[in-house]
């Protein structure tokens, strides 16, 4: 662990997304006059239209004519197979749209705000398929409701990420793999994972499934706006590897180098693997091999290991450090076409985690390839979800909680019966997070030892500023403090106070402070106590 403090920070550059420019409508095939480019849009929860300002960067549909005319759907020039799509959308009250992958598989966009139990036709749902031969009332089938309602109120931007796998076909054109939503994330909430689609959804361009099809946005039902539309498309990688030589040393000195100068075992192996070890602790493995690059470019190297590791490519140290396997290291390196040498040095001097070594390479816009053998990195331990719910009463739970990259140690989360929750920093008397949906994921506190000891909000929400709302200022020029010390702000506890409502009486915590001699009470209650 000592070593952990000494690691070098390695700059991580994310693989570039391809952005669809919204300077004009040239990215789309003959858009109808409903569609325009704007500089900005705004709306609210009560109006059925959006306001716009002139400029570039926002795609707006102001449906003008009749509904349900397919000319108003927006077909992208982009034809895609597997794709990771990311975009922001905004709808006015009551509006309806959808994102059709390959023009055929729809993730629904709808004003489903405040809907408690969403179904497949609600926002974030994978819209159902349609077959009239199933008989009246039964035409819709195989729709998928989102795991929870993650859409924000009309007039707010929503962020969606979709990882889509296109159907696959053999040489004869026979389908060998279904289309699949690998992940759909709305406003940070995972709402679908690995849902296979046995066929196209209702309203598809055609019933025929294909390897590549155009991205399409439904535009015939109402107003909708989009921005930040970007994607990654993965190709099959063409990096190849030659067998690697290895040296295995058993026994380490306290500084982590092998006790013996000559290896305990050595040889050649098809792929590097931590499985070459015969002990759980006190060993060092060294691999050397070659990577064959066809296309020159910026390649990303990713490493994950339990213990100390170093990856060297062409004599450059690419990643290095003491890590556990969930802590990935990532570096981009430019590689010319041709052969490149690599070496991996992996050592471990503790037994409380399994041996694990994973080294990966990614060609730009291609899928990740493993340099190490598949079983070299153990599967993560199976961990059940431990969830805390409100169950009709205010739920309160103290914990550690992440706030950005900071671990807050005196956090209290309050889940109100109305379905809104907040996390509050007792050291600062301030909000950290506010969300709605579920209450709290306490797995990292209450599974096994609970080593992170952190709780996580379940639901959709936003981060607050972690600032105490009051401040003494000597003059108007004085700068507001970033944080308060335990001496300035003395947390004194909280009192559970009752609040009456039509559906019942609920209790809410009233936090008590001594702020430089001033007694402060801070209670947060919802406008509407009931969960609607």
């Amino acid at each position, binding site marked *: 662990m000592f070593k952990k403090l000494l690691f070098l920070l390695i700059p991580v550059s994310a693989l570039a997304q391809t952005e669809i420019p919204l300077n004009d409508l040239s990215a789309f095939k003959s858009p109808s006059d409903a569609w325009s480019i704007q500089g900005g849009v705004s709306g609210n929860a009560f109006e059925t239209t959006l306001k716009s300002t002139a400029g570039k960067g926002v795609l707006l549909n102001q449906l003008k004519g009749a509904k349900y005319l397919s000319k108003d759907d927006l077909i992208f020039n982009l034809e895609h197979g597997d794709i990771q799509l990311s975009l922001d959308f905004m709808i006015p009250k009551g509006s309806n749209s959808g994102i059709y992958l390959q023009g055929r598989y729809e993730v629904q966009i709808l004003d489903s705000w405040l809907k408690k139990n969403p179904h497949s036709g609600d926002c974030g749902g994978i819209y159902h398929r349609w077959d009239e031969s199933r008989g009246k009332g039964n035409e819709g089938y195989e729709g998928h409701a989102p795991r929870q309602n993650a859409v924000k109120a009309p007039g707010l931007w929503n962020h969606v990420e979709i990882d889509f796998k296109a159907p696959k076909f053999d040489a004869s054109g026979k389908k060998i793999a279904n289309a699949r939503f690998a992940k759909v994330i709305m406003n940070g909430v995972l709402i679908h994972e690995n849902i296979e689609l046995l066929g196209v959804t209702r309203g598809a361009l055609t019933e025929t499934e294909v390897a590549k099809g155009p991205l399409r946005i439904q535009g015939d039902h109402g107003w909708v706006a989009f921005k930040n539309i970007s994607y990654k498309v993965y190709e099959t990688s063409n990096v190849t590897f030659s067998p690697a030589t290895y040296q295995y040393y058993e026994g380490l000195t306290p500084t982590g180098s092998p006790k013996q100068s000559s290896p305990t075992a050595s040889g050649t192996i098809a792929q590097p693997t931590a499985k070459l070890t015969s*002990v759980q602790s006190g060993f060092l493995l060294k691999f050397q091999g070659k990577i064959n690059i066809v296309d020159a470019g910026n390649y990303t190297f990713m490493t994950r290991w339990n213990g100390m590791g170093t990856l060297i490519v062409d004599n450059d140290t690419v990643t290095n450090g003491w890590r556990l396997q969930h802590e990935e290291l990532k570096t981009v390196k430019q590689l010319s076409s041709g052969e490149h040498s690599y070496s991996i040095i992996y050592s471990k001097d503790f037994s409380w985690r399994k041996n694990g070594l994973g080294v990966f390479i990614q060609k730009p816009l291609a899928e990740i390839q493993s340099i190490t053998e598949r079983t070299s990195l153990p599967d993560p331990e199976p961990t059940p979800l431990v969830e805390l719910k409100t169950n009709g009463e205010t739920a309160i739970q103290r914990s550690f909680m992440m706030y950005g990259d900071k671990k807050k140690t005196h956090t209290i989360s309050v889940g109100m019966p109305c379905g809104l929750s907040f996390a509050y920093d007792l050291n600062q008397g301030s909000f950290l997070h506010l969300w709605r949906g579920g209450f709290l994921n306490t797995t990292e506190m209450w599974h096994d030892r609970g080593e992170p000891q952190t709780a996580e909000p379940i639901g959709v929400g936003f981060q607050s500023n972690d600032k105490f709302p009051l401040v003494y200022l000597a003059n108007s020029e004085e700068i507001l403090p970033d944080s308060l010390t335990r001496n300035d702000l003395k947390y004194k*506890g909280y009192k559970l106070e009752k609040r009456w409502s039509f559906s019942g009486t609920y209790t809410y915590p009233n936090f008590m402070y001594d702020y430089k001699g001033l007694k402060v009470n801070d209670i947060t209650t919802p406008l509407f106590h009931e969960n609607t």
Partner: protein
Amino acid sequence: MTTILSFLTQDLFSQSKPRQLTEEDFYEIKTLPIPDNIKLEIGGVAPMPDGRLGVCTRRGEVWVIENPYQLNGTQPSYTLFASGLHEALGLAYREGSFYCCQRGELTKLTDTDEDGKADLYESVANWDLSGNYHEYSYGPVFDKNGDMYLTFNVAWVGYGEGKLAKWRGWLVKVKKDGTLEPIATGLRSPAGFTVNSNGDVLYGENQGDWVGSGRITHLEKGDFAGNAGGLWWTKEPDSPLKFTTVKDIPDTGEPMFEAAKKMKSLKLPAVWFPHALMGISTADMIEDETGGKFGPFAGQYFVYDQGQSKAMRMTLERVNGKYQGACYPFREGFQSGTLRARWGNDGSMFVGMTSRGWGSTGKEMFGLQRLVWNGRTPFEMKNISARPDGFEVEFTQPISRQSAENFSNYELKSFTYKYQHQYGSPIINQEDTPLRGVIVSEDRMKVRLVIDNIRQGYIHQIMASGIVNDEGQALLHDVSYYTLNEIPKGELAKVPARTIVPMPAPTKEIKANTKKVSATKDIVVNSKEVAVLLKKHACLSCHAEGNKVVGPSYSEIAKRNYSNEQILDLVYNPKPENWPDYATAMAPMSHVPKADVLKIAAWINTLDTKKAKVDLNKIENRD
């Protein structure tokens, strides 16, 4: 002569010898039923004067249990008094309120509107945390003045680190204004502590870095109990220790007793609890202030071990002004990891349990039980006190003079542990402490053991296996470990010098070398004998034949196909890396005689085939 005597003894009693009594013949464990939907992972226990019981849990709940004594055999009733606390590991009840220790706060919980639920959660004191999971906070324990004590674990970052947040690794007192007064440091994992009837703070420590074995230490202001993590804060103006760093510690691996000669602030434990033999993770302790309601051990202490799900007993005396004493087995068989114990109003003891994240012998994830004395006096070594030339052992019942005067009924030796920054320690410097004489008191309640080679600073094992009482009943527990920091002055016993000079037992760390061990293929496996050995050497505290306990089962070990010699090597020099799925590393058991280990090893290696047969039978018998 001796042989004849013991023959006679056996003969005399063979006619009327009663069944060997067990722990449960004297102390009964009563299980409190827990409603199915409650995860009662107990961190604190607080009996209330009105007959109810408060418990707090690692999930941050406080439950008040009505009818916990189940007087009419009826069900207890659970009410959720408070919730939302952060890993509550200690609870006390005082003047209508509960005081509960959360990770970062001492909280007073009060029900102001009498609806049975706390509505006022007052912060009595709060302190910094780094966010490291190992920074557990324990307490409060009240002293007679109404002041409260807390203990703070160090963080775990591959070693115990105190500097990540203020006063980690310290015993602190909560002052009236809520500020913390640092009292003593050197604490690593102080899960259990108490303020005794004399007002002295005793705390239990868990084996780890700087801690060779479990132990109990008397903490006075300015003491340094051994773990370096908390020393960082001696730089503070209110530190009762002068500025000290890890460099001031003699980190040489010599015994702590030797290191303490070089470092004045280093406090020796009053009682060592030899690792694996007397627990693996020292937890709560409690002084017997029941005035006899709990049996014949008034004024003594009961010390729990979380990993081994058991209670031990401890006696203390003051020699040259300092506490020292002995530990004894007491009661095994609790349902989960025994973390917390408090006296009930009737002189029975509530035991709160949790084992999540740490293995324990009791297989439940959590539990709540009550230990009740049933009025019968067990035949025990009641108390051991030091003498200038040995020890005096007091018994709970008159002993058979013949059995007590038989030298072969005693097994005496001494040993200690390394004091070092590494985690744990093997047993080192083990030597025999041969018996020179035995003096049985007139009333046959005591024996004076006069020994050669009495060793200051060492743990002395006193095993008295063959001693029987007037009914021919053997001791319920035949072993004890006395920590002899100080040898009292006084009159020497008048016994003749021993003529036979005994061979010293194997000493130092035994590095078993498989090559040097003779072939042992011919060992005849006697399951009964092995069963005795497994119990004698406390193997069963961590291992069982078929189930995972703290360590792997013997059947699992058998599957590894080790030779008997390899098993011997592994018993003397365990390789925890071979068993990554087990939370607790095995201690080197190099003090167990080679012949015994080889017998056990040979037995283990018969298990593989046996098990297969048993399984076949099971399949046939399935209905």
